[in-house]
């Protein structure tokens, strides 16, 4: 065979192999044709309506309205009247031009796909568009739902819903670009129940991407399943009332039903206004630039020193440790002095017993109490006694996440032996060095939820349910975390003494909480005035009522509000009054007006927030 023929033969064999291979993939094998079909099917998503959020009485806090997303399939758009589109949707022409420039620039990527042109169009605008839709081929509207808020229940409690971003999709693989999800508050906590299930309609399209028909006559379609409603423990009216009291103040109010641990109100002020909540993206910049940081849910994220309210904790520990009794009396000469250490106090009768010390909020008394706890001879050294003290404190839930269903809850801070070993050096500190803990100052950080939960614990005389916002039902019974009583390390028998003191604080001679007297209600309360390095003292108040068989426990924390009795006590007592009496007594209308009109924002130091 000549070399030419050898070459031709080899070439012929190679070409034959290619022809056989082509025959195999084009004619024999079917999988390639099926893959191509998959490319040619179009899935149109049907978005489910989100579940409603109801309050404890079944009143609606959040519901839906229908809006429309206007979609464009750029390849199918013909010449259209730009001005008409602008008039219908209230746009300017530059917006339309920019959109279409973008489609043109990305036409290869978009292919025959649809792109969102305008989101959340109102039904009025949609109707105006629908009448003339035939003028705009390539435009299309998909029904979606948007949130509506019939009562002002506070943006941080409800939380907002917004389109998922890439980060979210990575963490939640069930979500696709264009889906919405609850990002904060209740919307986030119960996203899985509220969101429902997406459905889809399958169409097939020809080479030009035009929908040719319903694939398999709809047999392959999936209906959307609407999200289920959730019933919360929130009292919508009380929540809304609290929002009006907290207007122009920075701080939180948390109210809990002690017997169940159900959160009645959860107010963080200033918060996101519900009028901005539905279109959070539109207002996001404005909100995030607000110096008072409305996005910050102070109720569970702002850990601050609790002030005198914390005296109750030390009192309880002292009682349990046996170093404190009802009739233990300590003197107070406008404060406590020991060597160089001086803790000031206000003028009041002296010496006083335990209930009086609570009523008058005596600083000196608790300096003695803390020292007797920490210098107790039954402990080998300060570290051991301090650890014991810390164990008591954390058993009330302080210094850790309570495990509520409020998203982004923080644990706050209770110092450890290490804290002081670092601060003073190991073996170089004693009870006197940390004396400010006695009156709730120093290295303590408690969230308003911690304080409300503590107040509920006292109201219950020694136990608490983990606070929560959701009501259980047959389909979704309460998480066991919310149905198990938690017992702090202090026995129940010691609580009535503290309750007596709190009652005296409201009604007794020299009591600091007289402003919290509510007609027809036997109130127990405790003021707090938390010093802080950033301006005026924080005004703190916890209270519960009625004294016997309590129905509500409230913690109010008003930043830079001054004395506990100045702002926190009036606000907390008004909440109690509203909840128990349904209305504010005439004698307290003046107080209510003062609270509502109170403007404290100028007292709050505004630090430039770092981005």
């Amino acid at each position, binding site marked *: 065979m000549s*070399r*030419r023929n050898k*070459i*031709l033969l080899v*070439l*012929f064999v*190679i*070409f034959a*192999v*290619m*022809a056989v*291979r*082509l*025959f195999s*993939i*084009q*004619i024999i*094998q079917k*999988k*390639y*044709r099926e*893959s*191509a*079909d998959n*490319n*040619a099917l179009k899935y149109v998503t049907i978005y489910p309506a989100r579940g409603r959020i109801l309050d404890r009485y079944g009143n609606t806090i959040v519901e839906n309205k229908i809006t429309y997303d206007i979609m464009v399939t750029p*390849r199918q758009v013909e010449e259209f009247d730009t001005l008409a589109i602008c008039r219908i949707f209230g746009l300017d022409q530059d917006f339309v031009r920019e959109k279409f420039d973008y489609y043109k620039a990305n*036409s*290869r*990527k978009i*292919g*025959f796909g649809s792109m969102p042109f305008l989101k959340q169009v109102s039904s009025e605008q949609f109707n105006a568009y629908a009448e003339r839709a035939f003028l705009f081929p390539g435009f299309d509207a998909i029904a979606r739902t948007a949130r509506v808020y019939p009562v002002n229940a506070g943006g941080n409690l409800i939380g907002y819903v917004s389109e998922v971003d890439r980060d979210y999709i990575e963490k939640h693989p069930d979500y696709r670009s264009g889906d919405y999800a609850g990002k904060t508050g209740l919307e986030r906590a119960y996203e899985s129940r509220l969101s429902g299930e997406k459905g889809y309609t399958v169409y097939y399209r*020809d*080479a030009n*991407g035009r929908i040719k028909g319903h694939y398999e006559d709809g047999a392959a379609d999936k209906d959307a399943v609407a999200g289920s409603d959730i019933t919360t423990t929130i009292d919508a009216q009380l929540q809304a009332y609290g929002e009006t009291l907290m207007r122009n103040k920075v701080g939180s109010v948390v109210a809990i039903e002690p017997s169940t641990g159900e959160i009645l109100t959860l107010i963080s002020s200033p918060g996101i206004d519900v009028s901005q909540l539905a279109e959070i993206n539109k207002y996001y910049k404005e909100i995030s630039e607000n110096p008072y940081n409305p996005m910050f849910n102070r109720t569970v994220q702002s850990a601050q020193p609790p002030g005198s309210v914390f005296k109750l904790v030390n009192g309880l520990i002292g009682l349990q440790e046996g170093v404190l009794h009802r009739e233990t009396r300590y003197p107070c000469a406008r404060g406590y002095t020991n060597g160089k250490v001086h803790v000031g106090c206000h003028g009041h009768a002296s010496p006083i017993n335990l209930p009086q010390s609570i009523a008058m909020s005596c600083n000196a008394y608790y300096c003695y109490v803390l020292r007797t706890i920490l210098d107790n001879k039954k402990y080998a050294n300060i570290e051991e006694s301090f650890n014991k003290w810390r164990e008591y404190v954390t058993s009330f839930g302080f210094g850790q996440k309570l495990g509520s269903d409020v998203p982004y809850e923080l644990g706050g801070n209770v110092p450890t032996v290490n804290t002081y070993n670092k601060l003073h050096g190991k073996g170089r500190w004693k009870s006197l060095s940390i004396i400010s803990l006695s009156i709730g100052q120093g290295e303590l950080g408690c969230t308003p939820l911690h304080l409300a939960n503590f107040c509920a614990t006292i109201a219950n005389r020694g136990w608490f349910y983990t606070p929560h916002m959701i009501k259980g039902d047959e389909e979704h019974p309460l998480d066991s975390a919310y149905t198990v009583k938690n017992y702090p390390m202090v026995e129940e028998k010691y609580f009535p003494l503290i309750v007596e003191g709190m009652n005296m604080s409201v009604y007794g001679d020299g009591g600091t909480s007289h402003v919290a007297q509510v007609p027809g209600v036997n109130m127990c309360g405790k003021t707090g005035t938390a010093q802080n390095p950033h301006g005026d003292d924080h005004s703190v108040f916890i209270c519960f009522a009625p004294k016997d068989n309590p129905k509500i426990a409230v913690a109010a924390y008003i930043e830079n509000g001054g004395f506990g009795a100045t702002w926190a006590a009036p606000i907390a007592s008004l909440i109690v009054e509203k909840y128990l009496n349904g209305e504010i007594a005439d004698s307290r209308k003046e107080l209510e007006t003062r609270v509502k009109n109170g403007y404290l924002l100028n007292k709050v130091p505004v630090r430039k927030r770092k981005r």
Partner: protein
Amino acid sequence: MNRRRNPYRNLDWTLIGCWLALVLFGWINIFSVLHGENHNIFDFSQKYGMHFVWICISLVTAVLIIRVIPAAFWQGISWIAYAGVILLLLATLALGVSSHGSQAWISIGSFRLQPAEFSKITTSLALAALMSKYGFTLKSMPNILKVAGLLLLPMALILLEKETGSVLVYVGFLVVLFREGMSGWILAIGFLIVLEFILTIITSPYIAMVVGLAIFLLVFFFKKEEYILGGLVTVLTCVALAFLPKVLEIESVAAVNPLPAHAWLAIVASAVSVFFILRLIIRYPRKTFERNAFIVLLCGILFVLSVQFFYNKVLQDHQRNRIDVFLGLVDDPKGVGYNLHQSMVAIGSGGFAGKGFMKGTQTSLGYVPEQETDFIFCTIGEEWGYLGALFILALYMAIIFRIIIMADKAKDSFTRIFGYCVAMCIAVHVVINIGMTIGLMPVIGIPLPFLSYGGSALLAFTVMLAIFIKLEFDDRKI
């Protein structure tokens, strides 16, 4: 018409017809891929409009070559052209524009040129000029070195530009050398090299060596017409080498897990094969063939060892990836394999008669990448089906076979050698490109001659073909 007044009646109109068919078919397929909403194929702001301009430029150039430029011009200019393109390649390396990870474009204003495409013409011309000299034979060492240098210089420069695909095309010149008297052993060894390379990567160097040794033994004994002995030695050696590592507990190379009872078999087999191999070594170096055979064997072992080094250390990530995907080591439909998968889906979905002109969903919906250049065959396969694909294969086969047959007949050896070069260039491009789109070849970006979008390639192939038509036309007049 007066036949005597039309001297071009004897031009090879078959080749010209095939050229025209391919070029026009390519053009409408490029239009089909890229048309979008636009239905004006002469829109010069679009690629398909520009492609028409390139077709016209190529056509004018071809007419010039056939009707104006004398055939002798090409032999005269071959060395200057070769040197010129080498300089261009050097310039590209220095000033070139990067594109798709390779640096192979040179810009003159808005005009971009790919010198590697033209190096095929000039290398063919220079090779033809060198080998057509009177008395040239591939048997002399200086001549072999000259040929090797002539081919390796542009190859090295193109390799430096990271245009791996264009380097592979030079493999085609080996076939030309074979036609001109190079030993067929070199092609066989070339084939062995590829086989060993693949085996080394997909299995292990040890297995590659065993297979290599088996082939060596078979060829060696069969050449000496010792068929039975050869078969026996080969089988025994394979058995011995397969089981021995396990018996000797060399786990790192053990490929087969033998039963314990196989130990005696391994020992007997190795004893027998060692006996025969020793006998061979005692006879060594009496004959050239045997000496060469042992050199090949040693080189083979070195080669297999160096392949691992080359594969792991020298190849770039994307090249290694392509090899892995091609060899089926990595299943990666979203990454490198994406191109191949979508390409095969497009072609496979074409069926027997295709989906029709401009109706291909896969290619026009943008599923296939680079569909107007390297993957233009996908559009043909999808829209024109098996018929269209066969038609294209037939056209290429017609062109290649016709060039080879006519070149072989040429009286002038310059024409013959150049003709073979043209045929092999086209053949290698077609086989690699179409082979790539149907999963027979790794994904290597080289254009499909006359069909792919891209001015440089179209012009280069057209010039090559036109020169051959002219040379062959004049050759017949001698």
